[in-house]
């Protein structure tokens, strides 16, 4: 049987950035809605902003004020917002004060007046603010709850049959969800305001919206000169998996791509974890610069350094990111205020990625990001970050994040972020002491679903960036920071050689062109024994003379397998 085509409900754009996305597309036309929340949460602003977005000359908006906020005060403050167009007031936007009817304590008269005004104006949208006034000063307060319920039912019926989209605005608490109005309403938007130490946090939740798949959870809202803005919680996206073409993104660091099996798999998230000063930011910069060289676009979110300073410093690496910023190939997002919410920060990153079509994102650093957040949001940090990373990698963007490691433990400490949960790939950096000198080493700790080198490799940061050095073969306990040169004795591979001779041979592999004196010192054996061992290795062809007569080097080994 052929399915009958559905007659879709028209959705109205609310004019509140981010709200339509949270609502599941917009506000259903002719819906009867409640905006609830405590004082100062932004209820009136939300209603007015929506009114200005929906009202037209043919279908104006009616704003009924009851006893809540005097209209003069409402107009005084709301006109500060950019959406408040005074030229439309009186024609498209009309205010009607019902305080006298409310003071008469006669809901019949209140309804009669609303009906009269609506019939006369045929508005597209009606707001009644503050509806809560009726419950406090009217029948409910004097025990006539049934009368209030009847009033709500009749009002909802009238507004719906007039083809009007409506909002009742009121202060309610969580304990009042049994109020009949919550049952009758098609949509309920709940606004919260929480003060945590010195930061104020506003959030919005769509408790219900009939006929729409709304975005669940609490969404951060911010009040600016333009009114309210909602920052939707970024929905988690299923990971797309590795790039179908197996595409790899070059890190921009010679040698590191080889360690990673050809580079970072496109669409992966990668963490560079290391102690302070280990060059994490430089890694990020080179990663972005490499992308720009390949014609890609990128976004960098910095939290610990002003962009000007960041750009100035990267110039010394021979990378002119400022030019890329000018050409709109690179966006540097600098977020420092201490009352940031995760969602608005993430939205800033997400919208920049969309606008530039960026394929590379650097977040430098997670520690700085967390510090920039209002205390309330720090609780949600890991979860929100996970959603951001999922959203970006889900569309093929490669995300590089830096994390400052703490402590000096032998095991790898990645602070509080549970990095392995967040990322596909991990590169660890650390300082090690080798022969009395502090050196930087790195290792590819993890690459999800990809082969990679397990070697530790020394690196240096020079004026031109990061340069990988030699492999640290032969050392144990590198991750402890104090590696030990441990020579393994693969005796079976050298039949006929003594333990001591194998040891000398391995040492010459690690330290080519060494003298017997140096070998004796490194191995800790008497010089006479060393000279005898070297003599026999020379005789057997394992060792040849080096640059000088008293220096030796290991030869290509005879096939002993």
């Amino acid at each position, binding site marked *: 049987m052929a399915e009958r085509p559905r007659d879709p409900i028209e959705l109205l754009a609310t004019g509140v950035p981010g709200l339509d996305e949270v609502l599941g597309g917009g506000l259903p036309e002719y819906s009867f809605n409640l905006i609830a929340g405590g004082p100062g949460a932004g209820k009136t602003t939300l209603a007015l902003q929506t009114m200005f977005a929906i009202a037209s000359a043919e279908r104006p908006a009616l704003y009924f004020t009851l006893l809540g906020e005097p209209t003069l005060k409402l107009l*005084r403050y709301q006109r500060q917002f950019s959406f408040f167009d005074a030229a439309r007031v009186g024609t498209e936007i009309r205010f009607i004060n019902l305080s006298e009817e409310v003071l008469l304590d006669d809901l019949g008269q209140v309804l009669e007046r609303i009906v009269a005004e609506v019939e006369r104006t045929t508005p597209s949208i009606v707001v009644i603010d503050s509806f809560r006034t009726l419950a406090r000063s009217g029948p409910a307060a004097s025990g006539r709850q049934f009368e209030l319920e009847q009033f709500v039912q009749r009002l909802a019926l009238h507004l719906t049959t007039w083809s009007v989209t409506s909002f009742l605005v009121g202060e309610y608490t969580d304990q009042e969800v049994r109020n009949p109005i919550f049952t009758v309403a098609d949509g309920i938007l709940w606004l919260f305001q929480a003060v945590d130490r010195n930061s104020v946090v506003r959030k919005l939740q769509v408790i219900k919206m009939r006929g729409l798949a709304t975005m669940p959870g609490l969404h951060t809202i911010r009040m600016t000169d333009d009114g309210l803005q909602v920052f939707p919680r970024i929905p988690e996206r299923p990971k797309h998996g590795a790039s179908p073409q197996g595409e790899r993104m070059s890190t921009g660091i010679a040698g590191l791509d080889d360690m990673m099996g050809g580079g970072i798999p496109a669409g992966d998230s990668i963490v560079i974890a290391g102690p302070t000063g280990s060059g994490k930011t430089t890694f990020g910069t080179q990663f972005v610069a490499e992308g720009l060289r390949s014609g890609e676009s990128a976004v960098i979110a910095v939290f610990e350094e002003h962009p000007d300073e960041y750009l100035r410093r990267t110039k010394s690496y021979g990378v002119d990111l400022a030019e890329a910023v000018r050409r709109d190939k690179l966006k540097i997002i600098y977020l420092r205020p201490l009352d940031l919410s995760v969602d608005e920060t993430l939205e800033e990153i997400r919208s920049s990625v969309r606008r530039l079509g960026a394929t590379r994102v650097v977040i430098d650093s997670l520690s700085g990001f967390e510090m920039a957040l209002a205390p309330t949001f720090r609780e949600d940090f890991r979860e929100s970050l996970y959603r951001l990373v999922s959203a970006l990698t889900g569309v093929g963007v490669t995300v590089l994040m830096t994390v400052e490691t703490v402590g000096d433990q032998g095991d790898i400490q990645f602070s509080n972020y549970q990095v392995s949960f967040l990322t596909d790939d991990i590169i660890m950096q650390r300082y090690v002491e080798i022969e009395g000198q502090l050196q930087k080493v790195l290792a590819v700790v993890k690459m999800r679903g990809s082969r990679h080198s397990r070697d530790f490799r020394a690196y240096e940061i020079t004026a031109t960036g990061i340069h990988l050095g030699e492999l640290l073969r032969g050392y144990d306990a590198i991750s402890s920071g104090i590696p030990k040169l441990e020579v393994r004795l693969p005796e079976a591979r050298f039949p006929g050689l003594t333990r001591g001779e194998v040891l000398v041979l391995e040492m010459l592999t690690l330290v080519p062109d060494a003298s017997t004196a140096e070998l004796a010192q490194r191995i800790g054996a008497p010089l006479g024994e060393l000279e005898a061992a070297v003599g026999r290795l020379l005789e057997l062809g394992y060792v040849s003379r080096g640059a000088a007569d008293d220096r030796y080097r290991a030869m290509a080994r005879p096939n002993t397998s």
Partner: protein
Amino acid sequence: MSSSSPITTTAGQLWLAEAAGADTPEALAAASDRLCAQLRAGLGNWIGGDGLATLLQRALDRAAPAHPALAALTARRGLIDGVAAAALAHGPAAVSAGILAVVNSLVELLSRLIGEELALRLVVQHPPRRDRADAKGSSNG
């Protein structure tokens, strides 16, 4: 404030629309009632009867020092009482000038609160047809 500012122009138009030719105490009192009813039906609809009454009282208080003819007038529930008696004592022209100053002050106060553009829009709003009829009916003159 310039004598030709939008506020004074609007205030003058509002008052003259009702008071033109009102040269007797009774006619002036009726014009005052019509003006108040007009404001109540238009502006009062937006800011509430109490809001308008408060605003009118404040405007009268501000204008009175410069207009001795207003000294005996009072604003009560959005109406100005004592206009006819004041016109008998001071002459209709002095009271008319005083009421014009009250309207001017009211618009100015409103402008300070909600901005001039919005204030002017609200005071010149034509009241709904039904309310206009009510307003005419409530006038005593």
